[in-house]
């Protein structure tokens, strides 16, 4: 029977069928960070002899609150660090770290066909590599650290075929928001989204990661992109990947990781995205969005409108802003920073603007290109890497009622601070909005140097 890509990966990892349609599923890689790992590590230490199934399969990344902001978060970091050291687990500590979903791929910890789990819902980002990468709770992660496996119900598979090349101004972020708007904020719950089509083939790995990052925002277990030459060339030479013939042997194996023709899916959707334009959220979940050129929709929910301080029919471009943020596991990779810098080069921001690279490696690469100068010359704050303001946990928290445009993935009530209002958009739209102080696209900006020219 013809199989989907997901079917093949799933069946290669099922150790045992369990009652109730559950399966014991082997986990090739566990990514551990300081917020959700310590409780599980302590559980194993206290009750299971501090023995891990295979420390070599685990990577620890100091992630969310880096560096620690207080005693409690310092303890989280210390537990992660001590545990990693005790077990010989690879650890990317303060200075060589960043957001785990950015660090794991850039160091080559993820590869096609593998199963990967992390106590973090945005682990689906790594499905971009053709891996079954999913977010789990602390107990499930502890179980995987102890016994190498998860207990899972087999997800259904939703095939989403995207056709057409993205037009100028449209980005992978707009694609992600568009897909969520089409299938709904919970439309893919208990499904894996298997992406395909010419659009996916044309996307870089950074863009595929942005798309897959937001699979969870439609409820999906993960997103999955078929691995191809783009995937292989991204991985070639990465720190944790083998070199030479060993790598090429893996590539030969990865090339066979394709859906069979005639594979059947629980549902199939085909979208032509060649006419896609920038999208911005207006509501309190990532499915509540509209085109940047549009208005708050007529059927907007009353609760979302009240929280966001909006009325139906209001043009999104008219909304004044209090803060802008470029960063997070959705949009903090080098290509995202370049896109923002292209907008900010030679211009000034008019609202507090925070730019947070996704990893220290991204930061160094951006600085080698002078992007830090572009951001700081524009008057933005250029920070070290971390999750930053995205989840209101460590820095850049917004005040009640404050409106922030953000390149992140969640506009939930209170996400960036109690009572704060978040509008999700691409890095280019966030950057343009930061200059104009209201929601805006780059095409609204006066040409650089135009003001000086008119004075002369």
């Amino acid at each position, binding site marked *: 029977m013809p199989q989907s890509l997901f079917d093949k990966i799933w069946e290669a990892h099922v150790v045992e069928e369990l009652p109730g349609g559950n399966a014991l599923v082997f986990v090739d890689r566990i990514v551990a960070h300081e917020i959700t790992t310590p409780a599980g590590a302590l559980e194993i230490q206290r009750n299971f002899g501090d023995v891990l199934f295979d420390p070599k399969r685990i990577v620890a990344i100091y992630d969310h609150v880096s560096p620690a902001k207080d005693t409690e978060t310092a303890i989280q970091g210390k537990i992660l660090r001590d545990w990693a050291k005790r077990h010989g687990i690879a650890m990317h500590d303060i200075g060589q770290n960043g957001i785990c979903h950015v660090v794991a791929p850039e160091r080559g910890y993820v590869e096609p066909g593998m199963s990967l789990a992390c106590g973090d819902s945005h682990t689906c980002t790594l499905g971009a590599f053709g891996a079954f990468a999913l977010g789990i709770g602390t*107990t499930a992660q502890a179980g995987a650290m102890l016994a190498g496996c998860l207990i899972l119900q087999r997800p259904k598979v939703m095939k989403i075929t995207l056709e057409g090349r993205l037009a100028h101004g449209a980005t992978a972020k707009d694609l992600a928001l568009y897909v969520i708007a089409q299938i709904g904020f919970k439309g893919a719950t208990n499904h894996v989204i298997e992406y395909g089509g010419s659009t996916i083939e044309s996307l870089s790995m950074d863009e595929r990661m942005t798309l897959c990052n937001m699979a969870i925002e439609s409820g999906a277990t993960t997103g999955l992109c078929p691995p191809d030459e783009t995937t292989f060339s991204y991985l070639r030479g990465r720190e944790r990947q083998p070199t030479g013939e060993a790598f090429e042997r893996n590539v030969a194996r990865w090339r066979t990781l394709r859906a069979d023709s005639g594979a059947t899916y629980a549902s199939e959707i085909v979208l032509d995205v060649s006419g896609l334009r920038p999208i911005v959220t207006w509501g309190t979940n990532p499915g509540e969005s509209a085109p940047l050129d549009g208005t708050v929709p007529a059927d907007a929910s009353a609760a979302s409108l009240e929280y966001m301080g909006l009325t139906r029919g209001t043009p999104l471009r008219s909304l004044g802003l209090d803060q802008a943020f470029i960063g997070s596991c959705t949009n903090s990779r080098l290509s995202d920073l370049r896109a923002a810098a292209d907008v900010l080069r030679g211009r000034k921001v008019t609202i507090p603007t925070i730019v947070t690279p996704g990893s220290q490696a991204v930061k160094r690469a951006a600085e080698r290109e002078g992007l830090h100068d572009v951001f700081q010359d524009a008057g933005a704050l250029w920070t070290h890497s971390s999750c930053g303001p995205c989840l209101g946990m460590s820095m850049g928290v917004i005040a009640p009622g404050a409106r922030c445009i953000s390149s992140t993935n969640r506009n939930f009530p209170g996400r960036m601070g109690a009572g704060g209002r978040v509008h999700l958009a691409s890095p280019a739209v966030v950057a343009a909005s930061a200059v104009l102080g209201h929601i805006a696209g780059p095409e609204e900006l006066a040409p650089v140097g135009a003001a000086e020219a008119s004075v002369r």
Partner: protein
Amino acid sequence: MKLAGYVLPIDRADIDTDQIIPAHLLTGVETTGLGEHLFKGMPGGRELLEGAHPQADVIVARENFGCGSSREHAAWSLRDRGFRAVIAPSFARIFHENAYNNGVAPIVVAAEHIDGLLGAERLHIDLIDETIATPDGGTIHFTLDPLRKQFLLEGGYMEFMAKRIPRVRGWLAAKAS
């Protein structure tokens, strides 16, 4: 196992885990004592809990309960505050698993029942029989995952996994050969 069944109705859909417990309160390393933080991220959450029956142990809400972040702290804070079940038409996957692992029953019922359940002060819920007796004399049957039901009622997820280690090692060895 029967619950006291006092209901805290929350007539909202898409209650995400940031609302259940916001990220700035995830700085601990223990799974207990988080009840005081429950619903601190929810608009009106504090008033909601203040108005709850002192013995409330069941939440009734609308679809997609527990969406968003994987933080198990959401289930820990519900349990610590005394909640033993959430009734909703659907749950987000990760919360659904986390609830089972922490003694909080994720009870899925058809959306058509929710209006009635939101209006009930007290429900008779039997987790073993998988039934809800409603105030109007009706009975709603629900289905729990038969494997996870064991973890829900007795705990033991980690012990179950520990017993699987030899089998997993054998599977891995067979795969490598």
